[in-house]
């Protein structure tokens, strides 16, 4: 239920910020591009003492605040996040769903939410960005807190992330393809 509450809060925030994120473009032009690209899954590898599983992950960003974009545009974005907003420096709320090819404690699915910060390292982040965050991961009825760290390159399209869940220790390694 906690996750559902968080998801509802995210959607509400997204709706509230919609007016601020138009940035001069018609959303109807963006949506037909954003939607199919969101279907491209991340690749993820779940590893614990009890189970290992390869999976696919679909991730969205209900809310993003960019501190690296210029002051003439709103720093807020929702779902459709132009890569420049993210890799120039940002903090964002992500939600994701996972589909594992082998069961983890009898479940093939997982959900997660995270708060992630991005720090530009090379060419304002367009070539290299470091990210650090925390989040919650829920699989087979168990919710665990995780810490995450990673980097992204190629205009923020390619992300490599490692998440550590404690007691017992679980590692989730992801190769993410982020377009927005």
């Amino acid at each position, binding site marked *: 239920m906690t996750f559902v509450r968080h998801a509802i809060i995210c959607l509400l925030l997204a709706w509230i910020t919609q007016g601020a994120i138009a940035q*001069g*473009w018609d959303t109807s032009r963006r949506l037909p591009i954003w939607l199919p*690209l969101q279907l491209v899954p991340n690749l993820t590898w779940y590893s614990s003492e009890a189970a290992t599983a390869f999976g696919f992950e679909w991730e969205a960003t209900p809310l993003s605040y960019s501190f690296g*974009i210029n002051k003439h*545009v709103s720093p807020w974005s929702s779902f459709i996040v132009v*890569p*420049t907003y993210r890799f120039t420096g940002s903090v964002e709320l992500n939600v994701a769903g996972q589909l594992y090819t082998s069961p983890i404690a009898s479940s093939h699915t997982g959900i997660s939410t995270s708060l992630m910060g991005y720090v530009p390292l090379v*060419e304002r982040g367009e070539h290299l960005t470091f990210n650090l965050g925390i989040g919650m991961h829920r699989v087979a009825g168990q919710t665990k807190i995780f810490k995450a760290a990673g980097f992204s390159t190629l*205009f923020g*399209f390619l992300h490599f992330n490692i998440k550590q869940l404690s007691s017992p220790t679980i590692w989730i390694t992801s190769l993410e393809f982020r377009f927005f």
Partner: protein
Amino acid sequence: MRKHPQIILLSALLFLLAGCSSVVGRFLARSVERIGAPITSVPEKIQDPIRPGAELAITWVGHATVLIQIYDKVFITDPMFTRTVGMVMRRNIESGLDPSSIAKLDYTLISHTHLDHFSYGSIDMLPQDGVLLVPFGALPYTPDFDHRAIREMRPWDVFEEAGVRITAVPVQHFSGRYGFDIPWARDRGYTGYVIEYRGKTVFCGGDTGYHPELFKEIGKKFNVDVALLPIAPIEPRDFMSHNHIDPGEALRILEDLNAKVMMPMHHRTFEQGFDPALTFAVEQLQRIAHEKDLTDRVLVLGIGEQRLFLTGTDAND
């Protein structure tokens, strides 16, 4: 060049991803092949390109990067100093100026959001105490640079201060930065500029295709001294023609604008199309200029070369 297996594999993958018959795919594959290729150096770069007392000085830095000095004001167009465009497209020849030699910069003009014209890393190599002008639609791609002002310019918008007048003028191109954003940015995010200061007028074409009426209209409004015009990539022509003028069209624009001289740019620095040689565009320009008796109005500079224009005369530096 000895080709590494991983480069060939990556080239093949990019080729397949972009579609076997796609010009973009072939172009990407070719760019990847060049990753390990050497970059030709520019010997004896100008150490101090800003000339005290110069009325008008033009330095071609490479690609669409031109340093323009009009009296005490210094302008740069589409600064590009990095070794690659977008981590993939590698330079053929290094930039003609060391960015650290540009001690003063009043105006940075960005023509559009493409990676070879709006280079974040290059802008960060330059002084940022001046004004940054970007086309309408480019602000969502503009990081929080330290310029004293960042202005978004719609077609025919005028930025004016201290006697400097910069007008955004329409050109024919396209925008976007990451590929997937091209459709939503199709009617914005690109511009040309006309700089006017103390009686001197410079037209900066950025990147453009040819439009029979567009440049005549600009020519009626301004008395252009120097037109900076792209001349490449030329081939494949059916793919390029809407967005990139060829040398013949550049000369038509010279006439449409009724400019005193044109300076070709946007050639030789990167391989952006399938022109048979890096000098193909400039050779074609010189040939057509000769045929049309326009040689005196075409000023071909080498990368890193500067031209000073003095009252009543002009001189090569």
